[in-house]
């Protein structure tokens, strides 16, 4: 149990997926306009990343590794993730229209989010078992959500500020991300 807690803390804070591993940067910078949007995206990422880690782990342990097809993992994982996202989308649409309405539009976005593939590959490299994979997928997605919601919060706060012209747009967002990165860098000493 402590082991799993350590994995969650490591994935969410110490090795934050966005701020220290640089995965999922496009959506981190692009969809952090408002807290509401980024929280919904974060929810969708938690959902998909947890399931994707579980499925990738099962596939790797019971299909790829026993057959010695280890080198096919990149191809298999990306296809499985793409198909999985499609299936989750259809499943939600049918069974839970409310949830679909909240998360639906973010699901296609996640297919190309390198963080999902990155977590699946990292899990294999780290030699995690099934439970650890699921927990690490959840923890990583939690870290992503924290990072994007905090950035969105900062951006909402500074939206009406008098920002020098040259800093408007991308530079100020990147500087905010830099400062957040420094804050999260501090967690490194805990790990």
């Amino acid at each position, binding site marked *: 149990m402590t082991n799993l807690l350590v994995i969650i803390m490591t994935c969410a804070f110490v090795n934050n997926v966005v*701020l*220290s*591993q*640089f*995965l*999922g*940067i*496009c*959506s981190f*910078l*692009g*969809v*952090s*306009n408002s807290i509401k949007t980024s929280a919904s*995206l974060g929810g969708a990422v938690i959902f998909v990343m947890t399931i994707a880690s579980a499925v990738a782990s099962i596939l790797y342990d019971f299909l790829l590794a026993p057959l010695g097809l280890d*080198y*096919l*993992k*990149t*191809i298999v994982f*990306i*296809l499985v993730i*793409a198909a999985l996202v499609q299936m989750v989308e259809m499943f939600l649409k049918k069974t839970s229209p409310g949830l679909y309405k909240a998360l*639906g*539009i*973010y699901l*296609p*976005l*996640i*297919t*190309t*989010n*390198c963080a999902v*593939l*990155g977590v699946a*590959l*990292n899990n294999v*490299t780290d030699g995690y078992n099934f439970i650890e994979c699921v927990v690490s997928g959840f923890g990583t997605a939690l870290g992503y959500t924290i990072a994007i919601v905090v950035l969105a919060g900062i951006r909402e706060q500074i939206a009406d500020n008098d920002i020098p*012209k*040259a*800093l*408007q*747009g*991308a*530079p*100020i*967002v*990147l*500087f905010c*991300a*830099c*400062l957040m*990165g*420094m804050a*999260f*860098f501090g967690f490194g000493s805990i790990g």
Partner: protein
Amino acid sequence: MNGNMERIYNGIVKENPTFVMMLGMCPTLAVTTSVINGIGMGLSTTAVLVVSNLVISLLRKVIPDEVRLPAFIVIVASFVTVTELLMKAYLLDLYESLGVFIPLIVVNCIILGRAEAYASKNPPLLSIFDGLGMGIGFTLSLTAISFFRELLGAGTLCGVRVMPDFYQPIDMIVRAPGAFLILGLIALVMNALSIRTRANDMVNGEPCGMCPKDCAAKGGEECEKA
């Protein structure tokens, strides 16, 4: 030949994937901690880009339109795997320091973007040069960023100490926050010189026109079918 040279120029200057189009930001931020890593990442991406552009261009009349994205992904993923295995065999040090970002070339927007925007509509030779131009543009950009990061952050270039002894390296620049700082400074210079890039559109969720994810940022409705 003219058209081919135009493609190279387009990739390096006009549509430079890093500085103008702001694509492939994850590897740009993550691996530019040293010049060797920057060049290595750039060249391996270039290799995948050229070969996948060639194959996709050759198959452009065979692949049905409805399943083109999965087909592209399979083609790209195959070449990424080949590159990964080759690097593991011959360049183990580089392979280990680039880590997960080698397999993640699969989801690099530049590659799928060029497949979708160029190679699937143009003849093979032009597509090769398009891939080459984009690849060189990406490599040069990564090299430039990693040059400054390694020089200021570690005082070295390609692992050799070049800064004078009294220079105290700013460790933070080769760490994670430094990547955002340097990219922010680049965007700042571009803004100050009024050079139009996609950077400001990107942070406002404007589409890059290449990946399905843009739909979400725009609100989703018009891309439901995508």
